[in-house]
């Protein structure tokens, strides 16, 4: 089987997370990632791009160029912003087929599912759903 872009991205992230010994370090990394994610322009933070079901506000923009996904996003909470950054690292530049067929296991692999799967309060599932839905509409 061919190793796809998405799997490469995930294993890169997984290996980075594997260095962290405490939850603080993980969050510091996420926050770092959040701070380095380019912010969205104000006019893009609109109702069309909003992701529902998050306690913090999250905006996510998916675009397809040459059959590949390009993500942008932002949030008013820094951890959520970090999550957006994480999703960008994982999904950006992947083919729509890869994305549509991806699953959420990577969250478990990086030891974040436990911390981040808080039902309905945290939008990471909603974000991934939105991304996948977008791609499967193009398939």
């Amino acid at each position, binding site marked *: 089987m061919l190793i796809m872009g998405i799997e490469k991205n995930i294993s890169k992230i997984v290996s980075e997370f594997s260095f962290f010994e405490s939850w603080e370090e993980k969050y510091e990394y996420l926050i770092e990632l959040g701070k380095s994610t380019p912010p969205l322009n104000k006019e893009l933070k609109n109702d069309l791009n909003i992701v529902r079901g998050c*306690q913090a506000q999250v905006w996510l923009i998916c675009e397809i160029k040459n059959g590949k996904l390009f993500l942008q996003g932002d949030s008013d909470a820094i951890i959520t912003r970090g999550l957006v950054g994480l999703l960008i690292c994982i999904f950006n530049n992947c083919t729509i087929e890869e994305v549509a067929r991806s699953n959420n296991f990577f969250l478990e692999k990086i030891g974040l599912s436990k911390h981040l*799967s*808080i*039902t*309905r*309060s*945290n939008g990471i599932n909603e974000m991934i759903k939105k991304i996948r839905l977008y791609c499967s509409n193009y398939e």
Partner: protein
Amino acid sequence: MFNLNQIRLDFPILNSTRNNQPLVYFDNAATTQKPKIVIDTISDFYSNYNSNIQRGMYFLADRATTEFEKSRRVVRKFLNAQLKEEIIFTSGTTQSINMVAFGFLNTVSSAGDEVLIGEMEHHANIVPWQVICDKLKLKIVTIKCCENGKIDIWDLKNKMNSKVKLLAVQQTSNITGHENNIKEICNLAQKQNIKVFVDGAQSVSHKPINLQDLNCDFFSFSGHKCFGPTGVGVLYGKKELLLKMEPFMFGGNMIDLVSFSKSTWGKLPYKFEAGTVNIAGVIGLGAALKYILSLGLNNIQKQEDLLKEKMWEELGAAKNVVMGLTKKPDSPIFSFNIKSTHSYDVGSLLDEMNICVRTGHLCAQPAIKSLGVSGFVRASLCFYNTEEEVSVFISALKRIMKIVNNGN
């Protein structure tokens, strides 16, 4: 294998005695007893992860929310409903019916339209419809029941017309134990674009329910009548109907945005779950349904059939017993009288022998009237009852006849 002795050990109360007499609990149609797993699940929630749900960011809230939503999945599976969001947690059948009456009926009807109701329904499936029909100026038309206690299909057909917007009917009667053919009824109704509300309060504990097969529009039941906790119930509705339906209660959780100028409702199913719901109850209900599934509804039916045959035969053979109906019930529910003896007297004396039955109008005054009596003694059995208990019961009735007539 269905090991009755083993199963009875699951229910702490079944092993109690009073005045050295074992408990004979034959009031299962009023409420069932609870297996230990349900009681323990509730204690576990309160002792180990009690918290409010859905808005908390912390571990306990996450766990409680997860278990709560797991129950929704269990209910969906138990009823074979199509979608999780078609399952709404309520405080019980009564609330479920009120929700549909006050939130849905107005979306499909206008003044002059009609609502059909079986003549043998429980008060809960009569009074809400009465009140809303009065408000909306709709007419209630009652459907006759056959001598077997079931909806008379001919009468139903006769009364279905384009003015009829909804039919409210029970699956199993709490008086006669007879079961309506819901699939056939829904089939007929759908042809005329009549929505069907099914009161499943008495059926869920006795037989498998397959909503996608029955194809009814709404269905409801109570946790406490199927081995679960009090204060929790379920309303199922087809998604497209629930989307149209207005909420019954307003408050926290069910909203999307609130301002003093305008508020908007949240998504299904939360739009119908205002405020803090019975979290422990919902989680306990999940445990109850899983318990039923683990026993197997087919096994349950087999055991209940045994009890039913024995009761039917022995009650029928007892002198001076007048049955409510002359046809054998579908579920082991038996309403009867002892000749020239008030049901109150029978109930009082049975209690002295630690036998629990219900007496009186059984929350269905019109049905009782239609059967031409002022009340009944009702013995309602379920899978944990034994054939020996049936024998004890029959002997008790004979003893009562002696006591009551002794003075003659």
